[in-house]
């Protein structure tokens, strides 16, 4: 069942048909979302009422476009800020973890590694509530003890960032560690041999080598943060990131405004993903 093995024409045809069907299945919801962003109707559904840009640029009720809908714009901003923080934190900690597990041997390392993988098998909502519970109790404790009100421990952006970071860091670690694993340590030795000290060797040789993985991890972290819902839902305060804001809207019922936002999201994240692909192509 590889191209070099002869197969009956019928089998080939049905296999191809299956693949085509699969990709239609994959594309359908997205295409529909994108198309109905241009429906000149209050509802993202048939019948087709004609083409309009209003859901992007409209500024009069009832068709206020994305670019005039302040709460949505603000939510996008919030999401972006959260995502940037989560990505930076995750890539930083991921980098440190990758070095730790790749370069050092210490007692308990195996257990620690498994422990590090655990966030992947904890449901997001459980992560969310556990952090919510713990931070609230900490905050109440501080309040009772010293009348300190630590806003960072209350639902809000800090907790959202920490909550997302708590599992995105694992993914970043895996992405970076996978590449570090492939790194030929003699390259570092070669740098030492050519007169670099340890830090310089890491800076000039290892980090550039890891760069594609770090960019990749950053983009993955960014996307995961941007689209995270379960954990965020439990930790969000007054500044709702985009997914939460959209969810709230969707609960209220949908207008093509949501399609328009979605389409923009698709474009932006495709762009990001392309950046990642190019970053990884380079080597």
């Amino acid at each position, binding site marked *: 069942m590889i191209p070099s093995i002869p197969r009956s024409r019928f089998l080939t045809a049905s296999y191809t048909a299956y693949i085509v069907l699969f990709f239609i299945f994959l594309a359908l919801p997205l295409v529909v979302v994108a198309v109905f962003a241009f429906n000149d109707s209050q509802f993202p559904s048939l019948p087709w009422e004609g083409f309009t840009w209003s859901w992007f640029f409209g500024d009069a009720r009832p068709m206020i476009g994305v670019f005039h809908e302040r709460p949505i714009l603000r939510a996008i901003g919030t999401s972006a800020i959260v995502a940037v923080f989560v990505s930076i934190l995750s890539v930083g900690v991921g980098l440190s973890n990758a070095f730790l597990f790749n370069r050092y041997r210490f007692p308990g390392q195996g257990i620690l590694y498994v422990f590090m993988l655990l966030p992947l098998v904890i449901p997001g909502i459980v992560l969310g509530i556990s952090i919510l519970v713990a931070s609230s109790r900490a905050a109440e404790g501080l309040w009772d003890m010293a009348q300190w009100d630590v806003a960072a421990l209350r639902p809000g952006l800090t907790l959202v960032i920490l909550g997302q970071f708590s599992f995105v860091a694992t993914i970043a670690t895996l992405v970076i560690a996978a590449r570090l694993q492939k790194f030929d340590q*003699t390259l570092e*030795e070669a740098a030492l*041999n050519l*007169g*670099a000290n340890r830090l310089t060797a890491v800076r000039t040789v290892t980090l*550039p080598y890891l760069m594609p993985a770090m960019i990749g991890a950053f983009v993955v972290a960014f996307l995961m943060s941007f689209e995270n819902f379960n954990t965020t839902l439990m930790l969000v305060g007054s500044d709702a990131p985009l997914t939460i804001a959209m969810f709230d809207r969707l609960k209220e019922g949908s207008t093509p405004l949501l399609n328009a936002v979605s389409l923009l999201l698709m474009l932006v994240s495709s762009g990001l993903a392309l950046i990642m692909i190019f970053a990884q192509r380079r080597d």
Partner: protein
Amino acid sequence: MTPDLECLNLVKRFGDTTAVDTVSFDVPRGSFFSILGPSGCGKTTIMRMIAGFLEPTSGDIQIRGRSVLNTPPNKRPVNMVFQHLALFPMMTIAENIGYGLRRKGMPRDEIARKVDEALERIGLPGIGNRKVDELSGGQKQRVAIARCMVLEPDVLLLDEPLGALDLKLRERMKVELKALQAAFDTTFIYITHDQSEALVMSDQIAVMNNGRFEQIGSGQDLYYRPASAFVAGFVGDTNRWSGQVTRIEGDEMEIRTDSGLLLRGASHGRPLSAGDSAQIFVRPEAIRIAHDTEELSHFDNRMTGRVASLLFNGAASRIIVQDPDGREEIEVNLPQSGEFAGLKRGAEVHIGWSGAQGNCFAAGVR
């Protein structure tokens, strides 16, 4: 003149295993010194100690007469060409070659000049802007050497640098490496487990086994005058038999092999006495073939056998001769003239060699 590199009683232990066991040698300025030995004998360990990546358990390493034990690797006046070259894949060729110079803080334009010069020297001018993976194996090899040579090290270490190349390229690079050494006029210390590499290139070769040096000498020394059974077996192809010394006459002797063959050999000054277990080595090219026994009358070892196998390989063709009782197989080189090229499997041949060509060693010494 102080030697470029001198190792004194170098020892390295990893836990229980002694990877390098009291090794001493010195390498004169400008020479090509090889360490030849089977896999795992401790070659890389020596080299890493010289480069500074490993600390010796005991012993001293001196470069140009000064101990470098307390010098960190990035400060030692030695550079190393790694087995897989370890070129930096994220940099261009020029950046690779300039790396060490940048670490020294040399001004940019001077670096550029030096890099161009080095590229010129290795016969690859104008490739500075290419990426590492745009080069062929042989070109990479030369760049790796140039990257070290721009730093003008006192000693260049090379750890099996041809190991990763394919056969044809290796053959070519052997000759080329020797030429590069002449061009840069630096001391090369070369590690290999391939005897032909060591023989072709080196001024001096140290044969290493199990952490110890068995013999240091020129290629001819090792090939024609091996100091131990190990060297005799490891350097060059050879026939080898074990047996018992039955008779000693000065330097000459007679050995009965375990399968019953009676062979004459020479001890070349090594102490051996009748009754000792011994090993005897005879090189395939030391054995003559003839159409009739007459021609071989001046040899003290003579035999008539059948061709068990014909390994035609041009000038390096060989036959495997089975002795009449089928007890032993003897590899014999065919003359380069192609005279016996027409031999067939099963044909009868007469072979003979002089006892002086049979190198005898006491068994168990190896």
